């Protein structure tokens, strides 16, 4: 990473595609597990959910500079959202696999499906899934140096897009849905509309906030990220699938694919649009009068110096 020598706005350059893939897959996957719980979807959806989280985990390991020490990330649960997220993922994968094994009668010889152990594992998996959908929003919002993330609304939006991605995954696998199809399609439409308004409010408030927050919005809507934002998030990710699920539900899989594209680009765009407030900005109201003289002041000063010099020479 090359550090700059200018005082202007700089967006964070540490996180890009790999972290976006992780947050997208883990959010969509764990959200799908929540849909599996609340809509009593077929077991295949729980397996799909686990697969997405595990695949995302592989992307996260690639993101790490020293992946062989990843287990150490469980050691700061008190302060670090990443640590809490890592614990949730470990619990989700372990309890999710055992819970699926239990539900598919593979583990009947160990414990019965409806027994206390099976219910306990299922409950832990569901709670961990909820935590995985929630934590990335808090993880990013904790960064006080980046105002675009550091808002109370951001974790809500992040959760909303996780559920949107989950509905996209469910629609993509709509051949397994059966009677649950209408409920998931309705959920997708509601979540798309809600996310659209929440993110819209966020963008407007960030624009009005000015400074680095406004620069983030500029990057998204009129800067280098605008193709990914307008094309990927708004058009392909929200408007097209909304039209499909409100119109012909026979193309639910296509709507699901579009939603997934939108959910992914949302993660990518919001990560890349994280702009720092420049550390070197001088505080408002500070007396920098010696440095910030107007041209007229300087001209008067220079004229005075010239007169003084002439007098001394004379």
């Amino acid at each position: 990473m090359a550090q700059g020598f200018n005082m202007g706005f700089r967006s964070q350059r540490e996180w890009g595609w790999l972290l976006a893939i992780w947050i997208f897959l883990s959010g969509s996957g764990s959200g799908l597990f929540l849909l599996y719980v609340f809509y009593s979807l077929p077991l295949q959806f729980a397996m799909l959910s686990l697969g997405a989280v595990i695949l995302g985990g592989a992307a996260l390991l690639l993101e790490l500079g020293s992946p062989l020490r990843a287990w150490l990330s469980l050691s700061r649960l008190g302060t670090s959202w990443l640590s809490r997220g890592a614990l949730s993922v470990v619990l989700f994968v372990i309890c999710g696999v055992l819970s699926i094994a239990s539900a598919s009668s593979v583990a009947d010889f160990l414990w019965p499906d409806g027994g206390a152990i099976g219910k306990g594992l299922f409950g832990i998996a569901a709670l961990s899934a909820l935590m995985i959908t929630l934590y990335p929003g808090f993880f990013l919002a904790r960064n006080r140096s980046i105002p675009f993330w550091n808002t109370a609304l951001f974790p809500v939006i992040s959760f909303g897009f996780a559920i949107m991605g989950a509905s996209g995954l469910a629609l993509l696998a709509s051949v397994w849905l059966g009677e649950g199809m209408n409920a998931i399609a309705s959920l997708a439409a509601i979540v798309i509309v809600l996310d659209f308004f929440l993110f819209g409010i966020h963008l407007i408030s960030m624009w009005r906030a000015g400074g680095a927050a406004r620069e983030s919005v500029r990057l998204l809507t009129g800067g280098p990220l605008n193709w990914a934002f307008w094309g990927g998030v708004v058009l392909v990710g929200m408007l097209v699938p909304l039209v499909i699920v409100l119109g012909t539900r026979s193309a639910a899989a296509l709507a699901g694919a579009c939603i997934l594209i939108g959910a992914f680009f949302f993660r990518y765009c919001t990560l890349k649009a994280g702009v720092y407030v420049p550390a070197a900005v001088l505080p408002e109201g500070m007396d920098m009068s010696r440095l910030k003289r107007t041209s007229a002041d300087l001209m008067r000063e220079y004229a005075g110096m010239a007169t003084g010099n002439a007098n001394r020479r004379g």
Partner: protein
Amino acid sequence: MAKELKKVKWGVAIDLKRCTGCQSCTVACKLENGTPPGIFWTRVLEKEEGTYPFAYKLFMPIRCNHCSNPPCVAVCPTGASYVRENDNLVLIDQDRCIGCHSCVVACPYEARSIPESDKGYYGEQTTPYEQVSYRKWQVGTAQKCTLCVDRIDKGLNPACIETCPTRALVFGDLNDPDSPISKLIAQRSHYQPRAELGTEPNVFYLT
């Protein structure tokens, strides 16, 4: 919980009226710590202001602020980033860092970096000097200004402080009211960068 009162609180005062933007501190840090290409533990930012013919440059040296409430330490999932017990130096345990980039993003002063390779300044082959200095850090883990902790422990000033030709940088114990840095801060108007974030930075800019 009451905050633990440290015996020593190291700080740096930067006199913006004295800084000429010569980058001596940047180079001295490179020499002392052997940081890899593209990574600077301290650097002087520049900004042009005004218009021709009355244009001028503002210079602002930036570095790790060794904050009393460092956001980089709180976000670290492994405890690799820590505050030294006997003073306020924020350091990184290279053997615990997993390179998750959380601290790099969390630092409001953009003072942390993660080297992606151990290439030297002169191509694939590192110089003997680079081979020795690169032992201080690992590829893929976070690194930052240590305020030359080895020198401090020997009773010396950090390299950047020693080298500043205009004496724009002053280092010392902020807990000692008689130290030169404490006196300067008491006498001069100053500000702490991004103090509104609650980081309690220990770098003071004198204006």
